[in-house]
């Protein structure tokens, strides 16, 4: 690179002086500069207006449709057909960029609250009830009832599976009014057990009569199979790590829901007003899951083994790395595409033996997608038209036909995807499976099982607290399988599983109670606050002017200068008043309200703060954040060590400095994605290097030495990093230490500023290297230490991006940092009042920390006399 500033240039460049090559800024005539700036602002204003206005130049109405990628390869072709048939509409397709399509509607809901929602959305049916309860979704019942009988795209709900219609419909808990439909069911998926029959045969798990491999039918068999089909690095020692997974309760797509349903559990009372997450059947189901994980050496081992898994042709199930899994019916596509010759079985997920003995049918649960129209959508008629078009048999046939031709031309089997419309689904199966002579019998059999299961499947309860219930059910599951409550339960002689579920149930019940209560009476009216605030701002200005007059003589203030100062400071004044000071004050007000952006804010008094101090996640997130303070001294020490090394007067310092600084320059998103993979237990180089080291002679020698002092033989195992709740934060700290180059630069500047005479004088006095470091270097660097400390603390309170991208708070909330929790509460759950209370606490914490630091600095920071 020719234009790179060479090392020596950097060395020699006198700081803060101008060189000839710099642009002659400041000598452009002022008028020109001002004119440029004004025209730029005008341009931006025009451009903003253009990009936010509604009308299109061709007069067509724009329907913004999110989630079209779910329709598959031919989505655009299908939509293009719609545009041809309905020349008045233009469909714009987009993606939601949602982190987790099951639990995170954040992007959509921000758009709805932002006032420019998409018009038609591919939405998780499970979440329909919750957003219907918040009036975010359009009631589709009048549209359905208003269809003309002759309408060619008429939707007939009788054709749909009942449970799919139920899941898309909502009524207020405890009420008996008829349900209204808010989400039009689209797809359907159910969970079944997949078994690798070859591995079963290999293990001798065969039917005694037919000698054919026999998939498990009961929980008891499943647990036994799971143990027998798993393989470990050291045979027989689960703690050594997995090399093959027999069965993991939560690998694939099962969740606690399926096991709880099977054991007869429900998550809500029949009238939907009480949460029953800790009911005995659910506890039983979770214990079953926990037991299996314990058999495998702990959930972390299983998770770590899973992390390197790939999809498509390299799927671990096809490669024999996983023997059994409970997963969605969509997995059949994978078998057809990549392993059509595999010996597998699709069977109903095993049930507890006693439940089967009661004569119950095998149980599974269904999920799927729905199409919804946001209640604030601009073009509802157009959206409904598009919705009807997308649900018509003609469109579905076109989509499936396209898929079929494509897959078959590549020599793959085509299988129809699950449809919420029973008639469509059965037609597709008949056509592509039953009547297809080339369809292997294994798949025909699988579809027969699926058709049967679809008839009587369960769904997750429709409730306004669905997201919260989901989150807490996952959290309860994580707490249980990670044995978070083991010690506490032992001390109190209680059941740790029940304890985990009971603890996680609290916030759900609380939110449900809050929703069921009548709304707090007092709406917030903003006018008085705004007026007060405006008055306060005006008072500040007035104070300046008064002081100016009063002190004109005593302090020599000139009116002209004060006026100029107000002009110069005005951008910051305005910015502060509108974007900082105002928001801080308003967030106090919000913190005393309940506010979800869609409905007006209402006062709740101190309720948010009361909830906050009783909220385990609040403390957890504070604790997690506090833990990360550890990174500050670590980064400082590493940075200082490098700076000291570089300060030894070696050649090529600029080059080294660049090398150490590069990680700091790397964009945080990019760095997070990179480190996510570096920490991957199976594919990241970190653990590849570690396991190589542990497996070497010195590694074994070390193990042997340590084993002399421990009861059990000692094993060095590479940590599971982001998958392990104990290692996730240290992993993030390691990633931070990688960017120690930032503090190194500052140390280097500080070190170079220490006068050499000090060291010389000390040497003459007989001080050794350590003493010189301790008594000269450290005190001379103390202002830098303070600066690093303050910036480090503030940075730590704000950790967000890496946690959001890499772990999203998991595992077991071990990386739920304060800022992330705040973000989730505000933009995922839209509990703006509660989140404002969190924000205010954060503000106070930072304020106190800063004051403490400033106070402490007086005692030990040495400032240069200059």
């Amino acid at each position, binding site marked *: 690179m020719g234009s790179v500033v060479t090392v020596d240039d950097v060395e020699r460049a006198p700081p803060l002086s101008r060189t000839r090559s710099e642009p002659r800024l400041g000598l452009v005539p002022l008028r020109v500069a001002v004119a440029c700036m004004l025209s730029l602002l005008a341009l931006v204003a025009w451009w903003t207006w253009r990009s936010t206005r509604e009308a299109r130049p061709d007069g067509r109405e724009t329907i913004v449709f999110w989630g079209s990628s779910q329709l598959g*390869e031919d989505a655009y072709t299908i939509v293009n057909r719609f545009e041809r048939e309905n020349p008045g509409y233009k469909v714009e397709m987009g993606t939601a960029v*949602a982190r987790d399509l099951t639990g995170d509607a954040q992007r959509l809901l921000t758009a709805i609250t932002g*006032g420019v929602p998409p018009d038609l959305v591919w939405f998780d049916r499970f979440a329909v009830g919750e957003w219907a309860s918040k009036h975010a979704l359009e009631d589709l019942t009048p549209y359905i009832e208003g269809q003309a009988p002759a309408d060619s795209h008429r939707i007939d709900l009788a054709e749909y599976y009942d449970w799919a219609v139920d899941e898309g419909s909502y009524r207020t808990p405890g009420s008996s009014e008829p349900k209204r439909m808010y989400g039009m069911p689209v797809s359907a998926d159910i969970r079944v057990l997949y078994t690798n029959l070859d591995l079963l045969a290999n293990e001798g798990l065969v039917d005694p009569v037919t000698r054919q491999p026999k998939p498990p039918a009961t929980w008891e068999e499943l647990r036994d199979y799971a143990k027998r089909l798993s393989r470990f690095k050291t045979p027989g020692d689960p703690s050594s790590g997995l090399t093959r997974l027999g069965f993991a309760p939560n690998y694939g797509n099962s969740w606690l829901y399926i096991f709880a349903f099977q054991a007869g559990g429900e998550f809500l009372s029949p009238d939907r007003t009480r949460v029953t997450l800790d009911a005995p059947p659910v506890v039983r189901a979770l214990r079953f899951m926990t037991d299996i994980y314990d058999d495998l050496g702990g959930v972390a081992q299983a998770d770590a083994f899973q992390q390197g898994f790939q999809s498509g042709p390299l799927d671990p199930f096809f490669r024999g790395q996983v023997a059994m899994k409970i997963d969605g019916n969509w997995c059949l596509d994978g078998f057809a595409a990549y392993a059509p010759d595999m010996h597998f079985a699709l069977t109903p997920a095993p049930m507890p033996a006693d439940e089967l003995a009661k004569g119950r049918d095998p149980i599974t649960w269904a999920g799927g997608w729905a199409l919804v129209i946001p209640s604030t959508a601009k073009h509802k008629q157009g959206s409904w038209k598009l919705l009807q078009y997308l649900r018509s048999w003609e469109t579905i046939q076109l989509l499936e036909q*396209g898929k079929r031709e494509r897959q078959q*031309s590549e020599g793959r089997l085509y299988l129809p995807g699950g449809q919420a419309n029973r008639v469509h689904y059965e037609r597709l199966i008949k056509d592509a499976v039953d009547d297809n002579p080339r369809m292997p019998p294994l798949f025909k059999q699988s579809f027969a099982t699926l058709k049967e299961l679809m008839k009587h499947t369960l769904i997750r309860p429709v409730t306004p607290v669905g997201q919260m219930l989901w989150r807490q059910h996952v959290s309860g599951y994580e707490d249980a399988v990670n044995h978070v409550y083991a010690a506490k339960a032992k001390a109190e002689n209680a059941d740790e599983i029940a304890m985990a579920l009971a603890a996680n149930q609290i916030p759900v019940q609380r939110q449900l109670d809050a929703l069921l209560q009548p709304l707090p009476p007092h709406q917030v009216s903003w006018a008085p606050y705004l007026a007060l605030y405006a008055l306060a701002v005006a008072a500040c200005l007035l104070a300046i002017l008064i002081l100016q007059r009063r002190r004109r003589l005593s302090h020599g203030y000139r009116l002209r200068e004060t006026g100029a100062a107000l002009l110069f400071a005005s951008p910051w004044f305005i910015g502060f008043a509108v974007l900082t000071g105002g928001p801080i004050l308003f*967030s106090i007000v919000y913190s005393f309200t309940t506010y979800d952006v869609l409905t007006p804010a209402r006062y709740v008094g101190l309720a948010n703060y009361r909830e906050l101090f009783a909220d385990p996640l609040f403390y957890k997130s504070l604790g997690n954040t506090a833990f990360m303070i550890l990174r500050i001294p670590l980064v400082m020490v590493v940075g200082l060590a490098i700076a000291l090394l570089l300060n030894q007067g070696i050649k090529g310092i600029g080059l080294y400095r660049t090398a150490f600084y590069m990680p700091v320059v790397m*964009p945080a998103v990019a760095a997070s*994605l990179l480190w996510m993979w570096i920490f991957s237990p199976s594919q990241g180089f970190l653990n590849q290097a570690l396991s190589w080291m542990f497996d070497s002679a010195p590694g074994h020698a070390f193990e042997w030495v340590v084993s002399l002092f421990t009861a059990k033989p000692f094993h060095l195992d590479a940590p599971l990093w982001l998958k392990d709740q104990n290692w996730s934060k240290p992993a993030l700290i390691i990633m931070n230490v990688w960017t120690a180059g930032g503090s190194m630069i500052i140390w280097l500047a500080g070190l170079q500023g220490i006068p050499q005479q000090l060291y010389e004088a000390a040497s003459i006095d007989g001080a050794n290297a350590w003493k010189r470091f301790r008594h000269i270097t450290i005190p001379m660097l103390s202002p830098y230490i303070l600066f690093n400390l303050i910036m480090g603390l503030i940075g730590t309170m704000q950790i967000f991006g890496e946690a959001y991208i890499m772990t999203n708070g998991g595992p077991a909330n071990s990386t739920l940092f304060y800022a992330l929790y705040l973000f989730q509460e505000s933009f995922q759950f839209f509990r703006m009042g509660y*989140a404002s209370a969190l924000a205010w606490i954060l*503000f106070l914490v930072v304020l106190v920390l800063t004051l403490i630091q400033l106070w402490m600095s007086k005692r030990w920071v040495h400032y240069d006399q200059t």
Partner: protein
Amino acid sequence: MTRPDALNAIGDRAVAEELMPRASRVARFGRWFAAKGWVHVLVMTLAAAFLYPFAWMLFTSMKTDEELTSPRLLPEIPHFVPASPYVREAPSLARPEGASEDGWKTLAESIRRETEAAVLAAIPAGVAVDPAAWAHAAAAVVAVRETARMPKQAWQGSADEAMAQYRALVTPVAITDALADRLAALEIQTLQLRTLDARIFPLVGGADIATKITVESGSATLVPTADGTRIDYRFASGSDAPVVLAYRFTLPDGVQPGDLHKLIVSLKPDDSWHRVAATLDLDRGRWVSDRSTSLAQNRATSIVFQPPSFDDDTYKARTWVRLSLERPLASNEMFENDITPEHDRSVLLRLTISPSSTVRAMWGKATRNYQRAFDSVPFWTYVGNSLLLVALTTMGALFSSAFVAYAFARLRWPGRGVALIVLLSTMMLPGQVTMIPSFLIWRELGWYNTLNPLWVGAWFGNAFFIFLMIQHMRTIPKELEEAARIDGLKVVQTWWYIIVPQVRPILAAIAIMSFLGAWNEFMGPLIYLRDQSKFPLSLGLFGVNLESGSDFSMVMAGDMLMTLPAIIVFFCFQRYFIQGMTVSGMKG
């Protein structure tokens, strides 16, 4: 100064080494090492450790998905493949669980021998590869697959029993599958045409291809196979003439030339990294593909050729190869193609397979994931948005910091002290505190789903930048300003003509910092942007990771693309950058 050092100081190392006895040379190195060398070694090791993640990212971005599980840092290097089909490497057979070490050795040998014999007997005629090598590789596959399916108890019994069980599993189907698996061959399975209104027309498929398609030039033959047609070809070198296949057909009934949406060629590539491109003579024009597709890996895949259509205006992942109109056909070409004004439905599709030399293949492999990253998202739109944000943020930061700092550093006014403390304390304020009210404010202004909330704030000043600027403006001598006032300059003029030129270096530092800040911004876009057309690269890249997270070689390619501009800016403006960082740490 010691003797060797003195000699060294003269600078003539050769002379010094000539003069010195060997032992003293060692001693000299020892002394150098004790004084400076260890620092170099230590720093170099540390620097290597800090840079390793970058190297890993770079090399991972060049791997295929099959290589991702391997612990090797470097991707496998593809080589020039002179002839296709060819035999793929044999997998190695691991000892199954339950088999004893000694017993397995002899057993493995007999398994190998017997399977190879069985496979050799089943090798089909007419495939131009070494049968022995093919049988060896395929037999290894059979052995690996079938031994895995045997119950583990089988290995504990007698060897004969185990062999008997094994034999029962080695069926003709297993052998045929293994033979197909180990033969890397280029096979075309079908050709399909789709129209703009979603009609599908299979054109030709299976063994028919061998009779319908002709080899126009190059050394190739077409061989019908079970479910397609194999193309056996040969290249003398990487610069050899390409193989051209021609297929003439008439558009299906009811399809006009303008209805053509896509032509889909389904094929099984041969992992040769040779390149396929297409030309299409249709309706008096010649269309050519705007890039070639590497024949990578061995999985069945499709190449979609597509003239301009409504798809081009969308943000759909570019999974197709665009055909663009190169020129109108000359009349003799039209004659050749049977195109007459009355009969304009004849089509000529040419598939060109160009050889890739080793270097070309390496380039193809190195850039493949990058190409995919570019294609899977509207990459340049994201880059454009990022750049726009960077430009507006940086301009705002420069203007506001220089403008506001002047009031604090050079002007005297009542309340300045208090205002300064407030300003400094906002430096400590985490953005999350004002996140919610800010969202509500921007939303009231109707600026949700615009880029405005992401950059407008910069024009009102960032406390940290203002603080930096204040520090510097304070060091400017008072006399400069006073001279200007005496010359009759107004305050704003003084600021612009006298002060701003003095703080250029710090402006440069602020520019770079705000560049990097805006380039990296993630939470703002996450909250404020709805449309993909407005996403900056950070959010876009996150989206790539969400949609194809397991495809992490592609994610790493995207990551590289996002990192590079930041690193380049850093390299070019290092000096200011480090100055800025240094200065910011100066005061407590």
